[in-house]
């Protein structure tokens, strides 16, 4: 599916994911993983990747079976490899806590596989949740 670079599009993405998961009979733990990973990755692209793009394109597709889902996000935004993003330490005390900045942490922690490549003008991120078989 194609998404506009607008935060409200994440609601449409989530509805599409629910429908796709229902059709493929995807198990609950895999659904949770895919939804979290895609929300974090797409939110990141929308908020930070498209600031200076006059023609933003974000495309998401998923290949789903009951035990494993491979999601692919392609966007023509600022080059960004989430695998190389520095880890933010978890919160330890409220006074020093800086709200936000954990999207990439959740993506990396939740996915069972991540692969990134820069392909010309495109970021291409593949996210695997679950295991085959």
């Amino acid at each position: 599916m194609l998404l506009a670079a607008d935060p409200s599009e994440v609601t449409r993405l989530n509805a599409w994911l629910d429908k796709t998961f229902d059709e493929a009979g995807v198990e609950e733990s895999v659904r949770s993983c895919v939804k979290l990973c895609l929300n974090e990755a797409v939110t990141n692209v929308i908020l930070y990747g498209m600031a200076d793009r006059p023609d933003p394109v974000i495309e998401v597709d998923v290949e789903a079976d009951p035990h494993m889902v491979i999601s692919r996000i392609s966007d023509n935004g600022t080059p960004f490899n989430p695998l190389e993003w520095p880890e933010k330490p978890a919160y330890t005390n409220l006074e020093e806590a800086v709200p936000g900045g954990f999207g990439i942490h959740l993506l990396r922690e939740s996915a069972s596989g991540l692969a990134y490549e820069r392909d010309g003008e495109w970021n291409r991120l593949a996210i695997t949740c679950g295991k085959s078989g």
Partner: protein
Amino acid sequence: MEIKQEELDSGIHKVTLAGSLDIAGANEIDLPFSVIAGKYDRVIVDLSGVTFLASMGVRVLVKSAKAQAGHHGKMVLVNPPEPARRVLESIGVDSIMPIVDTQAEAEALLS
């Protein structure tokens, strides 16, 4: 995203959230939570109806708890569904504010 607010007999302010706390849901509760943080010292946030929690939703909760702590207030999170609890614990939210299973436990912590 639904947000319901009420005053408990104990004088504690209770906020009940229901729906998806994705970026759109987080944007909807951002302003109400800024008001809550400034207005109330003791707040319970019931998360049992939250169907999905992303980092942007956590951001709103932490921002609000931090603002409350600035005037010696305290926020307690109650009964997050298991996927939401995993997100909260992964980020360390359980280290900076209490997460409990029942409203009674939350009220006891705020008494």
